[in-house]
């Protein structure tokens, strides 16, 4: 597969950090921040503490200025850390988008009057091309927009899009007709019919997505935000409630001062789920970015999250479960011939056969039987034809052939064969039933034996499916093979189910059936005939080498055209949700320690007895409150790497995974701030 030319960048590249810092300050603008309501509340809280700081400087507020000043500063930092996390996540995408954009500056196109190589053309800018226009692209030129090859075939360098430097063939008709704007033709000329208006091309969409400009919140994200906003409102009321309750208590106890606005504001920010709210945008953006590092473009965040929910995977057999091509694995002679004789005949019949199957026969003859032959010059090559369904060569008076059982038998009978070895029918049947393809070899009018052509299941694929199964995902193999062959391969690869002799309408029906039963279905495809099924699937991954209809029907595009990528996509989808869930639990668990830090400190002057709630033994009320505020702020940058990388994905049953994550983020979330706040308090005690 491909090399990843986009090197995974470290989260803390210096230039990136500087850019993010600048951007994070711009994001403080309330008109931008309102998209994150929790952080907007924190910004308002910061403003309030700024006012109390100014008041304590002027003496109108009795609290020491170092305290109000420090609280205000750290509240501002809390907001900045949050915008910084978002900017950092976006920054990585922006750098990539910039390099993409540079690849299509000043492209001109030769607009043809009619789709003919000899037609006259006018030179226009790429931005003037419209859907349906036909352009001529010659060797060394850049393709000005997305389109379909109408005529010709060319070698195209798509590294600008895929990062893959090896050129690919694009030709009219078939499944390799789509070309992408921004890629360049290396050899030959093609006529391309433009299929996307400027601004709507694949590259444009990619840039938009990577930049995060068009990022919409996913339904899951919105639902989580509902929870976070509700918690924020409750904590706002909790803090507002303390004011009258504490002023009543002052009267009742006859001592102390009501809890000040600075402390109430600080308490509010500490209690509000700032940690998760600050990192929420970064988690989504970083997830898309991680996919991009794997050369996968998700056309929406929703598609990635849906991938996390998938419980049925429809996988094409060829290329995903098995290596693309069948390979010869054994020679089985019949009619008293030796294996060596058969190997010899099979080799001769395959010498001129340039198909992967043919080459695998040559290879097997060399490996197993030590036979090496060059194609003799005087050989007469018989190409495979739909009529005879045979191929081979005529050499030195002998006719070597190989082909399907019935066609080979017909051929030898035509040459005057009187009897067919009786064991042949059984043998052919046995091989076919084992999921392999029997290829019968003949020399003149004699049947020599059978080549066992087998689909080779990719190494390690069984473990992958096992992993999927333990996550509750069912795998279904889709193949054009007959049910017999399909069943054998399905058993070997250990998929849960298969669809044999699959036609487009059957794929579509299968997907609809699963969806009807409530399953989320993902599928991969590349051909135009896959397009209806792709459009129906919840998660549709199109190969970049696929046709334009397939790419348009999909919501995820794999630039490497590697169908097993679907598994990675599922993983990233789950990671995004898990990271959100884990950080939410962590954020809320933190509140327990913050209460124990702030409440005794805030109420100590009224009820000194509440000192026993100061479990952490914090030095003074002011340092206790400040420590909680500082902890609340610095936990955000400390968790940025986690938000960008995502929590580690583990394939284990739901219940175990929940217990595991609850222990780390729930229990850890309760304990960590006790330790953190105490440590910060000890540090503050040194300075104050």
């Amino acid at each position, binding site marked *: 597969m491909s090399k990843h030319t986009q090197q995974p960048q470290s989260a803390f590249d210096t230039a990136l950090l500087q850019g993010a810092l600048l951007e994070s300050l711009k994001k403080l603008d309330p008109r931008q921040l309102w998209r994150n309501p929790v952080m907007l509340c924190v910004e308002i809280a910061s403003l309030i503490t700024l006012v109390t700081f100014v008041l304590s400087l002027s003496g109108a507020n009795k609290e020491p200025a170092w305290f109000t000043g420090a609280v205000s500063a750290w509240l501002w930092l809390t907001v900045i850390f949050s915008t910084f996390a978002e900017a950092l996540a976006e920054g990585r995408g922006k750098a990539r988008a910039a390099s993409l954009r540079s690849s299509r500056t000043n492209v001109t196109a030769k607009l043809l009057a009619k789709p003919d190589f000899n037609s006259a053309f006018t030179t226009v800018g790429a931005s003037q091309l419209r859907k349906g226009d036909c352009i001529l692209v010659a060797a060394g030129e850049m393709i000005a927009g997305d389109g379909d090859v109408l005529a010709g075939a060319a070698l195209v360098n798509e590294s600008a899009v895929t990062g893959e430097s090896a050129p690919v063939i694009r030709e009219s008709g078939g499944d390799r007709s789509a070309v992408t704007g921004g890629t360049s033709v290396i050899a030959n000329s093609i006529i391309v019919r433009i299929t996307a208006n400027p601004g709507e091309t694949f590259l444009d969409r990619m840039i938009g997505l990577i930049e995060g400009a068009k990022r919409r919140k996913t*339904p899951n994200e919105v639902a989580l935000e509902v929870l976070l906003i509700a918690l924020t409102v409750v904590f706002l009321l909790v803090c507002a*409630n303390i004011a*009258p*309750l504490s002023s009543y208590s002052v009267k009742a106890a006859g001592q102390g001062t009501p809890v000040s606005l600075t402390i109430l504001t600080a308490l509010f920010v500490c*209690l509000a789920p700032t940690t998760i709210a600050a990192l929420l945008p970064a988690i989504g953006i970083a997830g898309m970015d991680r996919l991009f590092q794997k050369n996968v473009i998700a056309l929406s965040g929703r598609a990635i999250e849906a991938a996390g929910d998938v419980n049925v995977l429809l996988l094409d057999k060829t290329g995903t479960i098995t290596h693309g091509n069948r390979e010869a694995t054994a020679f089985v002679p019949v009619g008293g011939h030796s294996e060596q004789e058969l190997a010899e005949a099979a080799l001769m019949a395959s010498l001129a056969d340039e198909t992967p199957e043919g080459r695998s026969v040559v290879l097997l003859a060399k490996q197993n039987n030590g036979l090496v032959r060059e194609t003799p010059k005087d050989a007469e090559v018989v190409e495979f034809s739909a009529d005879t369904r045979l191929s081979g060569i005529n050499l030195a008076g002998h006719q070597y052939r190989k082909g399907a059982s019935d066609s080979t038998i017909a051929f030898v009978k035509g040459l005057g064969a009187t009897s067919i070895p009786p064991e042949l029918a059984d043998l052919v049947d046995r091989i076919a039933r084992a999921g392999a393809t029997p290829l019968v070899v003949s020399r003149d009018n004699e049947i020599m034996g059978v080549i066992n052509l087998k689909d080779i299941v990719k190494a390690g694929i069984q473990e992958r499916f096992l992993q999927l199964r333990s996550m509750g995902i069912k795998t279904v193999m889709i193949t054009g093979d007959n049910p017999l062959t399909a069943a054998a391969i399905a058993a070997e690869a250990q998929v849960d189910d298969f669809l044999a002799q699959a036609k487009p309408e059957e794929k579509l029906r299968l997907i609809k059936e699963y969806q009807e039963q*409530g399953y989320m279905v993902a599928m991969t495809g590349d051909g135009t005939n896959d397009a209806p099924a792709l459009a129906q699937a919840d998660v549709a991954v199109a190969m970049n080498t696929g046709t334009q209809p397939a790419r348009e029907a999909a919501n995820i595009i794999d630039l490497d055209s590697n169908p097993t990528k679907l598994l990675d996509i599922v993983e990233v989808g789950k990671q995004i*949700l898990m990271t959100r869930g884990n950080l939410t639990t962590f954020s809320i668990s933190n509140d327990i320690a913050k209460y124990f830090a702030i409440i005794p400190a805030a109420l100590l002057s009224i009820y000194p007895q509440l000192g026993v709630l100061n479990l952490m033994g914090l030095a003074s009320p002011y340092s206790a409150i400040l420590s909680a505020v500082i902890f609340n702020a610095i936990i955000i940058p400390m968790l940025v790497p986690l938000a960008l990388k995502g929590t580690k994905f583990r394939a284990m049953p739901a219940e175990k995974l929940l217990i595991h*994550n609850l222990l780390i983020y729930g229990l850890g979330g309760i304990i960590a701030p006790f330790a953190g706040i105490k440590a910060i308090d000890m540090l503050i005690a040194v300075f104050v």
Partner: protein
Amino acid sequence: MSQTLLELVQVLFLLVVLLALVKPLGGFMARVYQGERTFLTPLLAPVEGLLYRISGVQPDDEMGWKRYAWSMLLFNLVLFSGLFALLLTQHLLPLNPQKLPPFSWQLALNTAISFTTNTNWQNYSGEQAASYLTQMAGFGLHNFASAATGMAIVIALIRGFSRRKSSAIGNFWVDLTRGTLYILLPISIIAALLLVSLGVIQNFSPYKTVPLVQSVSYDKPKLDDKGAQLKDAKGNPVTENVIAKEATIPMGPVASQEAIKELGTNGGGFFNANSAHPFENPTPLTNFVEILLILLIPASLTYTFGLMVGNTRQGWMLLGVMILLWLLCFGVLQGVEQAGNPLVAKLGVSGGNLEGKETRFGMVASNLFTVTTTATSCGAVNSMHDSLTPIGGMIPLSLILLGEIVFGGVGSGLYTMLAFAIIAVFVSGLMIGRTPEYLGKKIEVQEMWMSIITILTAGVVVLILSGLAMITPSAVASMSNPGTHGLSEVLYAVASMANNNGSAFAGLNGNVPFYNLLGGLAMTIGRYIPAVAVLAMAGSLAEKKYIPPSLGTLPTDKLPFAVWLTLVILIVGALTFFPALALGPIVEHLTMR
């Protein structure tokens, strides 16, 4: 100690009897609400049919959630108006042998709301203010109607889970009728007969005046013309000495009221002393029966739920969480009450805190009643919660503040618990990397909104109202124990009203405009906003398709989820009320040490 151990056995016994009844009653209720045949069908189906014909209800006319909600609100509005009018005119109506005057409009408003919302907060003394007609046609009717309303709502929510791609969640009038006719009425009749046989009175006699064996002298607080306590310059109540030689013994149709009061988790006592009154609750056995009646329907509904969603383990899991929290709270309450008051101990008096306990039943039976009545939204009391130790008092207060989900009110307890389950499912679903789903239904934005509204509305009202009370002089003046304990009294009062519990910490004079009016508002908001949110959620859930569980689905009927749900409930409660509790019971407890 062995005495206490013996007393503790009744907790176990209660649990065994309750668990034995959950399955038969839960199964019966499922059949009733699904319109299936039960052993009562031959007897009641003609009555049911007649009611539909009279009222023009088409029993198979299924409603969408909006129509269901409007029907529910309309029904409750009519109920409220009826009771409000009755309270204002009871002096003109029959069955008023004591010639009791009408309620003031503010008190009538508060009381009418209180009974319509299944709160049964009482800013009056039953025997001194309510005629027999008011008790029976007013309060009695509402005890049935408000309970049946709560049950109808939770059944609609359960249908939301069990139905697939459906726009309807049932017919409110049918659910209301069936709940009353097949469930509440038969059990009430049996329970009332049982209570009468055990000594609870049931008559229409005028109050009886009897001479006291020994005359009693006591200090009676002086009231001003508005009914508020007079206070001297130091803020202490002004009292006058009174010598009583005879006593008036109130009478009335108590047993019939008592049965539905407990069964419908209503809690509005016939007498001011509620279930501490010997005519309402004469023996330890009636005490046991009453506790059982309180728990009966809320606990059995979990089984109804399990049956209707096709997996009874789901119901048992919720019941398990409820029982766990209930036992936990009882354990703490029993422990701190048994340990007693350290200030009293300093005076050389050892032993548990018996102040305010119903000594006829003992400490365990009092504590068990206290925990049960606040865990459910019943609000009947057999002992004085105000006299509990600070931490002891925090237990019933916390049970109310948790949102009335530990069994909870009939219907309302389960639907609020289900809303909590949805929040728990949402967060845990994310933590395992899936779009959260509960009982095969995807939890999305709409469900999150509605669940959050359901579980947080009461808490928000408590936070706002308790804050307001502290800066309202008349509200502060109502405390009889100013200071930390007074703060607990106010917190308890607003919590009890907003969560539709109705029990009082006592010690607070609730019959002042602040508590009458704002309390009425709190009860209304606390009841109907969650109710409508739950119905909206039912509608949205019913429309969704069913997602079959797979290995990647988090099982919500197993121990890990039960533990997680318990933690979510406790954490949400603790985070919302820790500061208020710190300034009330916690600091009071610390001051006493």
